[in-house]
């Protein structure tokens, strides 16, 4: 009898074979549950020319990868830093045209991923996008078609298929079963839409613990390729039910980014730290633990 295989790996091992040019999606909404430890590892290993399919409302990880020179193409619904305002490196790159931007919107990203998750060739929308400028500037995404049942106009949008997605949760077992304490946002759709799924978790728990509450599992392990143990893996963002975001650290990021000095930030917190354990040490245990007293 053979043994069940563990999917547990280091971040470096899990991300090692993401090639330059890959289509990448990091899950999360705004500063909540974004897999920042995995994103920092992408920066460390110097992956280039990524095509970024972000979630419909996100920013920090995209802005950081742009500053690291890792992005060549970007779908945009909302890229910003939420209460901190615009994402400075994104804005700069857009204005200086150093990356290709495909303007879409929230339902287009969502339904494009859902089409990939569901194996549908395209999605038919009611025609309301035709009232906007999006079909004019993104003609490869919005095609006017005719509804074969009613003869009325409709809009077709294509599936969006990430090569790899990065997802962060509170708990996971070594087989990839993950539990997000704040419920699901769209991780179910994202993990099914992606060819490969890399899951980071605050805590690795026994499979028996997962099996006690199967209805609490938010990501089934069958979809997951690698599991990475990443305490404070959403830092400096929040991990629902575990810790809040680090406001001063986010302000520091934003200030440097506005001054076009994100390189300094990356040198200090990413490149100078060989891995996430060292990164967390640099931030300081006391400061991190304080984030758990949240709300």
């Amino acid at each position, binding site marked *: 009898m053979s043994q069940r295989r563990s999917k547990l790996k280091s971040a470096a091992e899990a991300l090692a074979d993401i090639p330059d040019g890959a289509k990448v999606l990091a899950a999360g909404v705004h500063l*909540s549950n974004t897999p920042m430890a995995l994103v920092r590892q992408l920066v460390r290993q110097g992956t280039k020319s990524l095509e970024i399919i972000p979630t419909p409302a996100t920013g920090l990880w995209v802005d950081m990868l742009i500053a690291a020179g890792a992005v060549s193409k970007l779908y945009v619904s909302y890229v910003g830093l939420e209460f901190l305002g615009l994402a400075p490196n994104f804005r700069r790159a857009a204005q200086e045209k150093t990356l290709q931007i495909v303007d879409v919107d929230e339902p287009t990203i969502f339904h494009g991923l859902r089409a990939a998750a569901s194996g549908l060739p395209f999605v038919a929308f009611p025609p309301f996008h035709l009232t906007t400028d*999006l079909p004019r500037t993104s003609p490869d995404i919005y095609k006017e078609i005719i509804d074969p049942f009613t003869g009325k106009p409709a809009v077709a949008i294509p599936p969006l298929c990430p090569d790899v997605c990065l997802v962060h949760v509170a708990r996971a077992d070594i087989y990839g079963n993950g539990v997000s304490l704040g419920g699901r946002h769209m991780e179910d759709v994202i993990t099914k839409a992606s060819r490969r799924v890399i899951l980071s978790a605050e805590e690795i728990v026994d499979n028996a613990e997962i099996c006690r509450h199967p209805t609490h599992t938010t990501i089934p392990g069958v979809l997951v390729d690698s599991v990475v143990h990443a305490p404070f893996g959403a830092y400096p963002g*929040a991990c629902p039910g575990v810790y809040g975001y680090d406001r001063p650290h986010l302000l520091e990021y934003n200030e440097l980014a506005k001054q076009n000095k994100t390189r300094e930030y990356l040198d200090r917190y990413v490149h100078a730290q060989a891995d996430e354990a060292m990164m967390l040490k640099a931030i300081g245990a006391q400061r991190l633990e304080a984030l758990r007293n949240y709300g």
Partner: protein
Amino acid sequence: MDFSTAELMAVTISQELRDNDFTAVGTASHIPLCGIRLAQRTHAPNLWFVYGGSGALNSKARQLVEMAADFRNLEGAEYRTPLQDIIDFEFTGRFTCLFLGGMQIDQYGSMNMVAIGDPAGKHIRGPGTVGLAFTSTIPRTLVYMQHHDPRLFVRKVDFVSGRGHDGGERLASYRQPWCKGPTWVITPLATMDFETPDRRMRLRSVHPGHTVEEVRDQTGFDLAVTGPVPTTEAPSPERLKIIREIDVDGVLRR
């Protein structure tokens, strides 16, 4: 009783909401959020709302947090709304109204969040369209603008992220049948609607301490005025009291 402009706006918003409305707020929405929760506690106990990326349905969070996606908003909520539901509620018009805004709005209520200038040429980049296309699916779009000046209120937006009333018959036919488009606008200076024969933005009330002239000066197009313009009603002490129970840290008074 003394009140801030933000508090005035929140109370005014609450009065624009109806019992049985179903709505949602996104980022940077403290003021609409307080208006919604005030409405629930006064004339609209059957109003439902989703609190941004947290997915909280009918949040009763004890404090106003700065991020709509903050999981603390799930406190006292009745359901964790996944994005799937939110988008379905938008497409099908189940949300009866939404608070939307932009980096530009024009005289017919079209809004822009993509770029000021030509996105193919020299421009100032915005965060992206997000949900502005829903001005053509949501029954009532309530426009919430944090500022009121001629750079925001322009004759014609540089990019249509969400369409107002200037589409003509063809574009109107692309709207969902239940959709009325932008119906109401609130800013730190005034409230406006689109109740002219050609659906142009019209001044409805001016906030206490401001004048019709000032509002028109701060608007980059010819803002319609039909008849005398009333002053926006000042918040009652009862409503202010409730607002300050919701906004326990005084965020709206900063």
